[in-house]
């Protein structure tokens, strides 16, 4: 069933105001969209977070912003923790100790927790085929500890551990293709999404929680603080990421790739770079080759994606 804004806007927010995320934070926008979707489906949610901005900002003890049962565990093992909760729930249902309410188990993890530190535990959930949705809030760096580079940081980006100066021109490596890794891992459903494309995102969430088995949605999370752009442009930056094909919107169902939303007109990557302070140095003549390399990679990946999606 397609989600209608006019309907879901009457639902209670499952993540309350008063959380401590920065002005214009993308993470809570995304979490609101995900939880409103599952609520509209009439399903209860149990959520977990590894360490990161979202966890810290929503659980300043003795307060919580969560209106669904929620647990935090260490950086690496939120997925193992929720997998245990899911298995216990299934077992209790089998024993007749709990009724089967078709509870949806959802993890919200940062890119550091997902691409790097928690990777082996997520792949364990996929291998065991547990019915859990993993949502990556991908702001492309370890933001909560002060903008360190991660496996999701794009080439050329400034971070505090890939500084810009005489020695380094920002990050010297491309980001990981984590969706590709999970597809190789045999995941039944994986996708890339973006918060400005809310209908696309919500449809993906509906699909992801409806299949029996693990699912993964990687959501681009433009972070004003870490990417260095004005705090009212979070959604604009998400749109630009998709329009330049820096962040294509696609899904992979049982190994079959499909592009879900295409940019009306593919914009040059330089427009995306110009809009963010973390890429400011790439506009200098001596760094032009890095901007060119980013464009080359984006074009190559877009070609490859279209080939796979045929």
């Amino acid at each position, binding site marked *: 069933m397609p989600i209608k*804004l*006019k*309907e879901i*806007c*009457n639902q209670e*927010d499952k*993540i*309350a*105001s*008063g*959380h*401590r*995320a920065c*002005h*214009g*934070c*993308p*993470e*809570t*926008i995304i979490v*609101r*969209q995900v939880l409103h979707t599952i609520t509209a489906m009439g399903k209860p949610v149990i959520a977990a977070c590894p360490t990161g901005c979202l966890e810290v900002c*929503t*659980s*300043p*003890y*003795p*307060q*919580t*912003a*969560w*209106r*669904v049962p929620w647990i935090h565990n260490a950086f690496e093992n939120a997925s193992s923790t929720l997998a245990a909760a899911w298995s216990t729930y299934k077992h209790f249902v089998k024993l007749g100790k709990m009724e089967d309410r078709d509870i949806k188990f959802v993890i919200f993890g940062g890119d550091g927790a997902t691409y790097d530190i928690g990777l082996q535990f997520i792949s364990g959930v996929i291998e065991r085929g547990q019915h859990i949705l993993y949502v990556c809030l991908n702001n492309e760096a370890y933001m909560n500890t002060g903008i360190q580079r991660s496996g999701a940081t794009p080439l050329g980006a400034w971070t505090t551990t890939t500084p810009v100066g005489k020695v380094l021109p920002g990050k010297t490596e491309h980001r990981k293709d984590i969706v590709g890794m999970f597809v190789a891992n045999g995941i039944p459903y994986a996708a890339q999404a973006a*918060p*400005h494309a*809310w209908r696309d995102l919500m449809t993906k969430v509906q699909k992801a929680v409806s299949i029996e088995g693990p699912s993964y949605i990687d959501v681009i999370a433009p972070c004003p603080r870490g990417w260095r752009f*004005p*705090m*009212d*442009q*979070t*959604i*604009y930056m998400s749109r630009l990421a998709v329009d330049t094909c820096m962040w294509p919107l696609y899904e992979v169902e049982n190994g079959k790739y499909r592009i879900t939303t295409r940019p009306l007109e593919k914009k040059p990557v330089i427009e995306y770079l110009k809009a963010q302070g973390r890429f400011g140095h790439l506009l200098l003549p001596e760094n032009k080759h890095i901007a060119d390399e980013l464009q080359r990679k984006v074009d190559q990946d877009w070609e490859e994606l279209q080939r796979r999606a045929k």
Partner: protein
Amino acid sequence: MRLKSWKELETGVVILEPGNSVLYRTGTWRTFRPVIDMEKCTHCMFCWLYCPDGSILVKDSKVIGIDYEHCKGCGICAYECPKKVITMIEEVKARTEEAK
């Protein structure tokens, strides 16, 4: 708010009041305040959808105002409003006006 002593804490330091973060007024973080021209609002709900702080107040599918107790003044609602009917005004000025 008085903090509990360690003897009063729940086992496993569980928090038993869902959404009690509303007790914290993030509205005090604001330097600019969004103001909606209600006459011109079409109730498309984009401001509600994109607000990171759930601060657009809605009743029966209609926008009815802004929760200034929690709105941080990021300006996303104003930036994204397709009708451009949200204006960001200086908080200090708004408060000075209110105090008059």
